[in-house]
């Protein structure tokens, strides 16, 4: 069989999503960011949101998300993406606004913006890639670094007495009345990728239907920060990250938000 005979439309089993463009990706081999980018692009394309989607990029390894996913983007200051998303969404209610953030960006410096966007029930999608480390700045400890994990700023492993405990942000935001959907996913196997894509679809659907804030955590790998091969990273993640960050839906109020607090009594 010749090359030409193989390269035929009917033989095609996979193609790059239309909204992922030709730019050379800067992610390390084995990094989860690339896979999640692909899913976001597919979801926007398949849901017909190309003209509606506004992405808010973080400060972190995915700062250049706007170079890869072909929709309109605003690049936020470190941690502030949910504040930008709040305004972009309220001022443009016919658009669909999503943030794409790392665990350091979201759970450390941006924790206040995250909690308040979620508790206000902004009709946005928040996507957090939790690799338990500050990938971009060279592998320092993040609030989500698990106990015992070695990083540049916890060289002997994170200790609870020195550094406190890992922050389980998804569990925190699930407690807030403004979130309608909170889920924790991964993208290390074909099956996980499919599930994560469905979760993202549900989140974007919630935003379109104005059901409140959807929060999608993706537990991911940072092979460079973890100093492991891509293959070993996946194994380390399964053995260590998933125990601390179990996968699955944490909250799903399919019908949207309900008033759970008690209003002031009329006198």
């Amino acid at each position: 069989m010749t090359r030409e005979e193989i390269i035929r439309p009917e033989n095609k089993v996979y193609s790059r999503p239309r909204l992922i463009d030709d730019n050379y990706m800067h992610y390390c081999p084995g990094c989860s960011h690339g896979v999640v980018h692909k899913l976001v692009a597919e979801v926007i394309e398949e849901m017909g949101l190309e003209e509606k989607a506004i992405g808010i990029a973080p400060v972190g390894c995915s700062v250049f998300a706007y170079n890869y996913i072909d929709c309109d983007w605003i690049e936020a200051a470190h941690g502030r993406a949910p504040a930008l998303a709040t305004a972009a969404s309220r001022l443009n209610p016919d658009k669909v606004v999503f943030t794409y953030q790392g665990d350091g960006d979201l759970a450390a410096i941006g924790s206040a913006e995250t909690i308040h966007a979620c508790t206000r029930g902004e009709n946005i999608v928040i996507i957090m890639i939790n690799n338990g480390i500050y990938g971009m700045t060279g592998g320092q400890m993040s609030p989500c670094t698990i106990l015992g994990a070695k990083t540049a700023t916890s060289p002997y492993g994170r200790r609870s007495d020195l550094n406190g405990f890992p922050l389980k942000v998804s569990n925190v935001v699930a407690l807030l009345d403004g979130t309608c959907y909170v889920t924790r996913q991964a993208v290390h196997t074909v099956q996980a990728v499919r599930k994560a894509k469905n979760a993202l679809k549900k989140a974007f659907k919630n935003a379109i239907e104005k059901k409140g804030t959807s929060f999608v955590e993706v537990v991911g790998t940072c092979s460079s920060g973890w100093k492991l091969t891509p293959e070993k990273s996946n194994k380390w993640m399964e053995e260590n990250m998933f125990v601390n960050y179990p996968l699955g839906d944490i909250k799903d109020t399919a019908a949207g938000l309900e008033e759970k607090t008690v209003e002031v009594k009329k006198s």
Partner: protein
Amino acid sequence: MKDNVKLMKGNEAIAMAAIRYGCDGYFGYPITPQSEVLETLEAQMPWETTGMVVLQAESEVASINMVYGGAATGKAVMTSSSSPGVSLMQEGISYLAASELPALIVNVMRGGPGLGTIHPSQSDYFQATKGGGHGDYHLIVLAPSTVQEMADFVSLGFDLAFKYRTPSMILADGVVGQMMEKVVLPEQRPRRTEEEIRRQCPWAVTGKDHGRTKRNIVTSLELDSAVMEKNNERFQRTYREIEKNEVRYEARYTEDADYLVVAFGSIARICMKAIEDARKEGVKVGLIRPITLWPFPYDAIREAAKNVKGILCVEINAGQMIEDVRLAVSDSVPVRHFGRMGGIVPNPNEILDALRRDFIDKPANAKED
């Protein structure tokens, strides 16, 4: 017209003028002495009339980043705060400048440093005019001295911000924020339509719609230093344009003046009383009131200083604008500062005393100290 004449506080005038300008969104956090801006907006409920979004944010950090997010979509958005809150906004303001986004920031100054006092001050002059945040940038800084100017500078601030694609600031002090005066509010203007925004702000992040094939990205990041230098050169060209076109000031009694007072904001009005008292005694004093603190009216001051024996800078601070006045006149004429700090506003007698002490009563040949 008569309906538009109102008696109100400066802070309330800002809020009412914002609605009438057709402002799309306000994001703010309470702090004395400017909370009436947010309070007035919440009471007016403009979302029911013009569709303006009003949101009490969780902090000034969030407020300014909401402004950043809203401005990036081409909307006319603003925030207001007072000194400690504006300090928190500096990172966001630098990002706005770097991303060439129009926005309006109002600082109703109180006395610092630190938590300081809730009483009026002008001690954020350096912060507003010399940077405040990181990087080489400028804000267009407007200094109102009346409640009328509080109202008028909302539209002026927005118009300049959109004209030059750069944030502008109303640098008011607690006096103009809190005092009540008669004000003529502008006519209600409609908010810009999506169509107008697309036309005026082709760079805006509006979703890749209406046949636009290239995505819009609003970012301040550029890792290639050669490109980043070019970006900076573009910012600087804009600043030079603004310096050329937008200097504003008020001159009173400068034609025959032997002494010149330079003052901005509320204290300029108090200085006018001192100047009139001096003139009653036959001492010819004039006033230059910079309205734009950046761009600063260097030329006007240099011109007005040609025939005077001394310049007194009166500020409600330890002496900040005086540096720009000295730059304007070099060593051609003695320049002195008079000010009070900690939230104390000088009265006309103190100002007149300072004029006498520094200049009028001084023998012409006295040695400069």
